[in-house]
């Protein structure tokens, strides 16, 4: 039944697929996000990144396993924690998924299928291969600029540079070290992938924009902060 809904390749064992959902003050959306994954994927871990609201409790009530940071560290750090927790629990495949409801659970099936077809270690979701709903023009241009920057700095021929929906094989996840605690982790990940021997492919996914997801997302100012984090980190080990 699970395989029918999510349309994953027959050989994929969903029990060893772990979905990592980082969340900070997401009590309004987290339960809905977890429940949307729950029927298909038994292993959903929400990393409550020091929320001051009920994010952790809501996620737990909705059926997720919850790992709580006692202080807020940032999305990159939360992903690192969730990935480590999943690896310690025997995950063979790890999917990162945003808490704010912008990702569709059925796209996890698309990532799994793409991995199965290509044998890739890493599958990155691309909204520019898939589609978007209600994406503002300013966000489109910002993402296009980020993609161009990524192409120029890493050499990776990607169509979408900052999509939080990704799949990592156990091999890839075990090698990954996220040093950027905050939003620069997405660029850091791509830098690292470009220098690794891992096979990286993209899969079409759809992103749904709402007032809520837009309020939580990045803007031009935060992209400057990301650039600063990336460049300054190159000055020290």
């Amino acid at each position, binding site marked *: 039944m699970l395989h029918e809904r999510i349309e994953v390749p027959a050989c994929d064992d969903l029990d060893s697929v772990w979905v990592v959902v980082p969340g900070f003050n997401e009590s309004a959306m987290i339960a809905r996000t977890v429940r949307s994954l729950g029927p298909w994927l038994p292993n959903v871990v929400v990393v409550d990144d020091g929320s001051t609201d009920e994010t952790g409790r809501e996620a737990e009530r909705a059926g997720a396993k919850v*790992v*709580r940071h*006692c202080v807020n*560290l940032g999305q990159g*750090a939360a992903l690192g924690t969730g990935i480590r*927790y999943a690896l310690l629990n025997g995950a063979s495949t790890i999917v990162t998924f945003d808490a704010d409801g912008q990702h569709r659970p059925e796209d996890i099936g698309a990532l799994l299928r793409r991995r199965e077809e290509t044998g890739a270690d890493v599958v990155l979701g691309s909204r520019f291969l898939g589609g978007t709903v209600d994406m503002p023009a300013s966000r489109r241009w910002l993402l296009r600029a980020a993609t161009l920057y990524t192409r120029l700095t890493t050499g990776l021929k990607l169509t979408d540079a900052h999509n939080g929906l990704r799949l990592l094989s156990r091999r890839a996840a075990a090698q990954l070290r996220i*040093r950027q605690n905050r939003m620069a982790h997405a660029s850091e990940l791509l830098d690292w992938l470009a220098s690794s021997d891992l096979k990286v492919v993209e899969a079409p996914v759809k992103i749904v924009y709402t007032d809520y997801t837009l309020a939580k997302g990045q803007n031009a100012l935060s992209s400057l902060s990301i650039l600063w984090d990336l460049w300054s980190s190159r*000055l*020290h080990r």
Partner: protein
Amino acid sequence: MIRIPLILALAFFALYGWRQRRISPAIGFAMPLISLLGIALVLWPSWAQRAADLLGIGRGADLILYIWTVASLLLLANLHFRMRAQSAVITTLTRELAIIEARQRNE
């Protein structure tokens, strides 16, 4: 007489910078270099004027002021990098604590 404490202070900074080279290679090499240059200028003050003439700055004192400004900025940068290193330690601790607590809760 002022020369001795100045040389001692600059030697201290040279040593301090060198010891930071693992955390920040930029500081580890720049700070000793600037400090040693400072010691040379304390011992032979006329060098500052000669260097300033060579660089077209005008006064030796101005040259020293510029070097001082750069050194101060380097120190600030070093503090920034130290904070980042501390932040990495806090991240590791928070992560391990969270995972231990979650595994105990879910057992």
